[in-house]
């Protein structure tokens, strides 16, 4: 994969338009998906996605071909998202993700479960949410996520575990999971339990 990436990048640097289109088509879904999860706003996600690719092509010469391309691209995406969040003034609207999906809605309470999971994700801290999305939605391994966020693998695992626990806690409060799993668990079953209930840090 890295040899293919390197060949594609070389063609892009030579000005090959087809290679440019191929690179955009290959990564635009993941970049857009991450932007949407982090920014929680569809139009902002589109603008930031466009800006991300502009920056990618401007700095393509600085990519180290000995390293995988995807973490480098996702790193740029996250940086742009953070900059955008810092500059944004208006309150973010929660995007209606289910409208973006071309599939039929399940008949059971899965739709409600999905909505609750998405709401729980939106309330997570930015780094917890990012790691959760990169791992569970984009299927990236710990090493790639660590390279993207420029953090140790141990930190990434800790963030992901805490994110899961916070989501589980919210689902429990909303009645989406069996209510008794926290009964008798005490503090040892919820690291940071005092701050874990409905934290809204982003």
């Amino acid at each position, binding site marked *: 994969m890295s040899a293919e990436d390197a060949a594609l990048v070389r063609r892009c640097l030579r000005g090959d338009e087809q290679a440019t289109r191929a690179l955009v088509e290959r990564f635009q879904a993941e970049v857009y998906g991450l932007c949407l999860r982090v920014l929680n706003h569809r139009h902002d996600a*589109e603008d930031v996605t466009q800006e991300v690719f502009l920056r990618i*092509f401007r700095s393509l010469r600085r990519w180290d071909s000995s390293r995988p391309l995807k973490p480098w691209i996702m790193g740029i995406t996250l940086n742009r998202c953070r900059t955008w969040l810092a500059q944004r003034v208006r309150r973010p609207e929660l995007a209606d993700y289910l409208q973006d999906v071309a599939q039929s809605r399940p008949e059971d309470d899965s739709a409600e479960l999905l909505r609750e999971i998405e709401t729980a994700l939106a309330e997570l801290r930015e780094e917890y949410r990012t790691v959760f999305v990169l791992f569970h939605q984009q299927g990236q391994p710990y090493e790639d996520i660590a390279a993207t966020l420029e953090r140790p693998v141990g930190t990434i695992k800790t963030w992901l575990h805490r994110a*899961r626990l916070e989501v*589980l806690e919210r689902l429990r409060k909303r009645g989406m999971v069996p209510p008794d799993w926290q009964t008798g668990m005490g503090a040892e079953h919820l690291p940071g339990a005092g701050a874990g209930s409905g934290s809204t840090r982003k």
Partner: protein
Amino acid sequence: MNCTDHQDWIQDYLDGAVPADTGSAAEHRAACAVCRELFAAAQRLLAGVRQLPCPVPPADLGCRIVRSVLADRRRTLVFRRVAVVGALAASLLLATWFALPYFRADVPNGNREVVSGDPKVPEPSLEESLQEGTAALMAVTRRTTGETVGQTRLLTALVPEMPVPDPQGLVALNTPSASLRELQESVSDGLEPVASSWRRAVDLFRRNIPPMTPPSE
């Protein structure tokens, strides 16, 4: 396995690293209701996460991105070309400005003169220049003196003859000067110098003297 170990096992399960019913974990869940329900919650979360819709970008987003990238690339190329041409022009101007003095030949004492168009004419040495200057000065002095004497003679011719005074009635003149040298000095003292230095005298006479033709070879 205790509850803490089972919690760690739950994380591995959510990572997809372990199957659902691993021996010691299953045994612990059979004995611990809390961990059994935690496992159920984790299963529900995993099922929900797997059904989470992947955000689909708008259909035209890819085209918009490619268009903006290509336009940005064209702008960058134009800017680079303008910058290179500007830098080259500035370098050329600087090089010309610094090299301009070297196109003029300098004499050792700092005077400048236009380079002779005839490379075969050797430049005169310092001694030759001094000799020429001295000869030119003497020539101009003779000419000036000659003109003065000639005009004086004309004036003298117009003056009527006067009777020669009685030598005895004349007031005794001063005794003559001690030597001819003193006479010459007294005469030269009255003359105003042509120039304050031989250099200026040379320049002055060069302007008045017709150009000398080089000796034919």
